[in-house]
């Protein structure tokens, strides 16, 4: 599924070149193959840099600190016991000083896996409810959701950059190599339209994937704790107060709850397509049915 991302980028570039040199397919192919190593190399380097530094970026943007085991024996023990029950290595634990109730999981490999909780959620939830929340975050780590999410964020970023590049080259004129600039202008517009559509599709795809993984994490968490009612009760408490003051929308999608709570009219329902998390009432309903 992840291969869809680079495949989409390459497809978009290929279509771009096909349109540019229509109907001279051989020329288009030649140009595509010529630029391929540059594009592939550029994407790979961008990807590696983002991969390496993302965890520091996330910690800086959310101002989290490492959890002190002595001060927070309760949280440490809850996490340790859950990890023992599924034979998983314990991730690092971090805290955010905030009254809001929220939590997230991060990290791409065993060395960097971490679960972050706000002081609000630690203080307000009972042991069973907090266990449900921690189990949800641990499930994200076990199902490798964080890796999936971060890779998709990086690719959407790269695609967005390429589309912007296309847009700018349209605005500031062609290279002067081609003879008939009017036709080329229209061709560029078509290519741009394709690029934008592809970009929107990847974004929608990312959101749908993200919602599905949230439901999966809820289900895996219940499998770990065998207590869906406590999890539902935790979500109820969270739904009243989870807004955290974090600048980046990308980081916010990794939280356990994101976005406004009620979805009543059609406009909000459409906006639901762009939500990273399924609506909390729906999640509570699913849990109470278990």
């Amino acid at each position, binding site marked *: 599924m992840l291969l869809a991302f680079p495949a989409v980028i390459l497809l978009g570039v290929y279509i771009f070149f096909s349109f540019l040199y229509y109907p001279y397919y051989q020329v288009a192919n030649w140009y595509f193959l010529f630029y391929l190593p540059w594009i592939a190399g550029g994407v790979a380097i961008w990807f590696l840099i983002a991969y390496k530094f993302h965890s520091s970026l996330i910690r800086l943007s959310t101002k989290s600190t490492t959890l002190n085991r002595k001060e927070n024996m309760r949280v440490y023990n809850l996490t340790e*016991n859950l990890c023992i*029950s599924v*034979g998983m290595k314990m991730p690092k634990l971090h805290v955010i000083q905030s009254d809001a109730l929220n939590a997230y999981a991060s990290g791409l490999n065993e060395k960097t896996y971490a679960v972050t909780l706000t002081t609000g959620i630690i203080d307000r939830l009972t042991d069973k409810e907090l266990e449900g929340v921690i189990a949800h975050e641990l499930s994200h780590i076990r199902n490798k959701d964080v890796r999936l999410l971060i890779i998709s964020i990086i690719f959407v970023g790269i695609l967005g950059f390429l589309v912007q590049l296309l847009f700018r080259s349209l605005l500031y004129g062609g290279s002067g190599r081609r003879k008939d600039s009017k036709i080329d202008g229209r061709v560029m517009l078509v290519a741009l339209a394709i690029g934008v559509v592809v970009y929107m599709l990847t974004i929608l795809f990312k959101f749908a994937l993200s919602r599905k993984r949230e439901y999966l994490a809820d289900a895996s968490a219940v499998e770990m704790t065998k207590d869906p009612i406590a999890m539902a009760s935790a979500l109820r408490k969270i739904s009243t107060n989870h807004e955290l003051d974090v600048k980046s929308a990308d980081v916010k999608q990794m939280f356990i709850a994101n976005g406004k709570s009620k979805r009543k009219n059609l406009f909000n329902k459409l906006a639901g397509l762009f939500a990273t998390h399924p609506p909390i009432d729906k999640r509570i309903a699913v849990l109470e049915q278990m």
Partner: protein
Amino acid sequence: MIGLWVVIGIVVVLIIWYVVANNKLVALKNNRENAFADIDVQLKQRHDLIPQLIGAVKGYMDHEKEILTRVTEARSGAMNAKSINDKVSAENELGAAMGAFNIQVEAYPDLKASANFMQLQTEISDIENKLAAVRRFFNSATKELNTAIESIPSNIVAGMKKMTVQPMFDLGRETRAKMDVAPEIKF
């Protein structure tokens, strides 16, 4: 000629399938034994903490000789148990003795003022939670092994290695019936 190559191809595929299935069964079996050993780790920690707990309540609960003796005896019984069935029933007896002990502790509110005692109570209760967690892991490891032993392609290999379905950690019928009865609270 082609017939010969086809036969060789089939034999190679069969060998590869056998190796893969065998390795998977071995990995699942070792996973389960690892979980079983982990249970012993938690049990040992529990055995080590109990004398400290008894020491902490000595000044307060001197008249409760009966329950203190029961706990101490259950502990030595658990530490000396040899076979697996003996171990399981000894640990269950220790668990029951600890349960009765905790109920008796409620009658001594002075104990709550002792920071040492409260600390030990927290630690023991954490050990009990860890024991439950590691037993759950043992059970899920047993489930995976049994599923592989019984499912169709790998059950052939399991039969060849004479592997049989393994028991889970559960209380057994008699103990479950005993536990379903609510504990007696005497005042």
